[in-house]
């Protein structure tokens, strides 16, 4: 084995070899940050522009109704739902321990924690590897959040994460901001929706 | 208040009318302008090449020459930026003459707008004009808002002055402040890219319907003019001082003894 612990020391020594004064960085001044009169409207506007679909629903049952109007939902073979009240899935994640088993997943319906108005992103905090994998391997993704769980911009978002203890747990953890369906413009700058992750992405806003 | 005129070397040698127009502009505002003898160059070509040792004595000469004046005015954003932003290396910290010259050297447009508060000049220039925002004037001296930044309420000093000229009609290129490709020795070291950049600027201004490209730096215009004349493109270039003094649109000059 290479003794790269010596590299560690070498690097740290070099970093300490010259005194560089570090000035205190003042906290972000909230009065300088953008505010929206209607964050939900802003969120909807941005996510729709990006290629996601936003649906305001009065109750979870409407999620199934709306999805039922989509041919790609009706023809789906494997649907995993972490919110049975919204959609009854036919793919039971609790019985799966190998993420590879999710390879044929068509739909994943999952809960989000909150949305971010300025960029149309939703914070999703899966509790295990299977819930995490389904977010990316599924062909189509639906995320359900409460419309009251909407922050304005990323500063508020990270403060919310701080308050929720993200990053300060003792065990490993994973969280992701998801904004719209996966995409690429790598072929002559033509936007193609559905790169490696989901091809469509829906956000349902409950009361 | 003693005001000295600092004439960039290439204007002195190749575009004297730009300096004449500058002089006339200032004098028309009642400024008693002195042209200190023996001035040559600000040292930028040497500094930009990396030859600090060659630039230093030239810079020190300039400071020596201009230190006795209260204000120095220069019809070039890039030479002014050189003095204000890139001279520190050539002087000891706290050098009084350097500090004086650095804080009292103005580019022409900023002098007219900020110091003299010039409004309308009473000149007429009935032509379609497009502005080329020379990079140093734009991004070093902030003579206008750059398209990249969002600083809010940065006035465009060139445009402001030109708006005081009667008869001007505006043509607006697609790219408001892309570099013309002169870049000093860049024009020769990276000739292919320099020429491509210049041609694209000209095409942009031409497509906007401009008769004349106006800028605060004659160096940009010298490069564009070189391309224009070689290709016979029907567009002219003029320095802002010339337009402000109501010079007639130049006639296309014959190619160098062809």
């Amino acid at each position, binding site marked *: *084995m290479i003794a790269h612990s010596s590299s560690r020391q070498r690097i740290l020594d070099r970093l300490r070899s010259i005194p560089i004064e570090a000035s205190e960085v003042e906290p972000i001044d909230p009065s300088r940050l953008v505010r929206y009169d209607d964050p939900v409207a802003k969120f909807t506007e941005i996510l729709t522009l990006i290629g996601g679909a936003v649906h305001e629903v009065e109750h979870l049952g409407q999620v199934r109704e709306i999805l039922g109007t989509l041919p790609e939902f009706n023809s789906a073979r494997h649907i995993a739902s972490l919110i049975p009240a919204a959609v009854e899935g036919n793919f039971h994640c609790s019985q799966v321990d190998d993420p590879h088993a999710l390879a044929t997943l068509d739909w994943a319906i999952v809960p989000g924690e909150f949305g971010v108005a300025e960029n149309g992103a939703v914070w999703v905090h899966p509790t295990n590897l299977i819930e995490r994998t389904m977010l990316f391997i599924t062909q189509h993704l639906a995320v359900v959040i409460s419309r009251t769980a909407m922050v304005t911009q990323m500063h508020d978002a990270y403060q919310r994460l701080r308050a929720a203890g993200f990053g300060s747990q003792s065990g490993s953890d994973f969280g992701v901001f998801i904004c719209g369906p996966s995409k690429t413009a790598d072929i002559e700058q033509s936007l193609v929706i559905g790169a490696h992750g989901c091809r469509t992405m829906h956000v349902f806003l409950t009361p | 208040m003693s005001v000295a005129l600092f004439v960039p070397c290439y204007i002195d040698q190749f575009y004297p009318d730009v300096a004449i127009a500058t002089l006339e502009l200032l004098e028309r505002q009642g400024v008693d302008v002195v042209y200190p003898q023996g001035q040559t160059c600000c040292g930028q070509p040497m500094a930009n090449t990396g030859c600090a040792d060659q630039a230093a004595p030239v810079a020190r000469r300039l400071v020596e020459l201009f230190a006795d004046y209260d204000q120095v005015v220069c019809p070039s954003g890039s030479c002014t930026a050189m003095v204000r932003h890139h001279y520190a290396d050539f002087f000891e910290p706290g050098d009084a003459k350097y500090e004086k010259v650095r804080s009292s050297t103005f580019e022409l447009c900023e002098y007219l707008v900020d110091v003299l508060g010039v409004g309308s000049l009473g000149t007429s220039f009935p032509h379609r004009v497009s502005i080329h925002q020379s990079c140093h004037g734009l991004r070093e001296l902030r003579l206008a808002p750059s398209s990249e930044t969002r600083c809010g309420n940065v006035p465009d000093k060139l445009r402001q002055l030109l708006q005081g000229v009667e008869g001007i009609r505006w043509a607006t290129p697609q790219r408001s402040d892309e570099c013309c490709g002169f870049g000093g020795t860049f024009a020769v070291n990276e000739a292919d890219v320099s020429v491509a950049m210049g041609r694209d600027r000209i095409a942009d201004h031409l497509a906007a319907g401009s008769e004349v490209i106006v800028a605060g730096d004659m160096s940009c215009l010298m490069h564009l003019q070189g391309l224009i004349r070689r290709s016979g493109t029907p567009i002219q270039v003029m320095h802002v001082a010339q337009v402000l003094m109501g010079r007639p649109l130049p006639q296309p000059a014959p190619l160098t003894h062809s």
Partner: protein
Amino acid sequence: MSAHSPLPIVLSPPAAEDRAGHVNSAAPSALGHPAMARDFVTNVQRSRWHDGALWFVRHKRDVQASSIPEWEYLRQMASKIKTSAIARSAELLEQFEQNAQRLGAVVHWASDAAEHNQIVYEILHRHDVRRLVKSKSMLTEECHLNGFLEERGIEVVDTDLGERIVQLRGEPPSHIVLPAIHIKKEEVGETFHKHLGTEEGASDPQYLAEAARQHLRNKFLRAEAGLTGVNFAIAETGGIVVCTNEGNADLGTALPPVHIASMGLEKIIPRLEDLSVFTRLLARSATGQPITTYTSHFHGPRDAASELHIIIVDNGRTELRQSETFRPALGCIRCGACMNTCPVFRRSGGHSYGATVPGPIGSVLNPSNDSVRHKSLPYACSLCGSCTDVCPVKIPLHHQLLAWRKEFGKRGLLSIDKTLPMKAASLLFRHPRLYRAAGRIARAAMQTLPRFVFVNRFNLWSRDRELPAPPEESFTQWYARSRKDSGNHAQVNASGYNKNHRN
């Protein structure tokens, strides 16, 4: 995990270029940027197409910048956070290591590219990995990791679509965010036909991307390990953040049990909240999107049965940090905005820089690693300053390029064709009589000597441009003649004006 015999310690230096193609390791120190750019920029159609494509990305960035009233405030804060983080690097990296280990990650340190590559290989070898998937990591490009692993029998699949395209074509990426920006869709079609079996002649991006999706899905599912870069490493939590639009970093790390994350040591930031500033600036600056599709926060390995290895890499970064002038360049978040806005990059293409990271930031970073090989790069710049104005962390890029030129001057690296004219010019400028005489001679020569003396293919100015028409007299001559002893300075001298007014 099975036991292995100790690995032979093979610290071969990274291959100069492990992929055949535009960057030829044999010649680069002889060829500078102008020579490497020539074919691209003089192919007017191609150059304009490339320029237009990147200008559009710059334009989208502008639209995003306009949508955030506090845009400049964010840039200021980003600059401050990075400046402070760079200063506190040692403390923050130790804090990061401690927290990452607490979460169950293994933290490695690599002094240089060779060591990084060896560490990656050891991890893979220990797990018997033959199939690795990678998401975009400019650091691993810099270390020439792919070739190193391939030589040792490991299949490396770049899963970012642009990276996969250039990988299949055997070329290096030409842009750090848009690796295939120099490639037309017909060319992608040819490559995919050859390697993925798509229809011959097909060039529809949707069709081609779908083929890539299926092909790469297969690779994700069969991968035995996944390697990602790190956009941000958070000292106080020990977590790492990876931003993608495609979801490839996530698929590549959710499926296989081993995740290797390679990070340049400058990616460290102090606190979770600091991410707010960077996640608001990164995608807006890079591609003109409000945020990347996925902003994934990895805190420790995916589960108890898996491994997360984080490799902290120096490879010249501590060297750059020693310099007060160039230290701010370490704040780079690899957004590529400087490339999109650079009029030189847009017209000459990324391969003309002969380095992993091209464009303005590349021209600042590369000379630090090899001044001789990269000495043309700081001159591949008109000093327009647009890069500085778009940089989300406010690196004074064009000033740093100028500073490199001065540094080369000090180190005696400037060629005589640069220094001699400057010595001559300096001499003239210090002796006004000489200068004026030279001017008179030049103007006279331009008026009398035949055209070919000045206009010929050796004169790089007049190859494509006319020289200025020589005026009858200089301003100094005019002033001496018409203003000396003339009392009323306020009067315009009409005869002087007519004679000299010829642009």
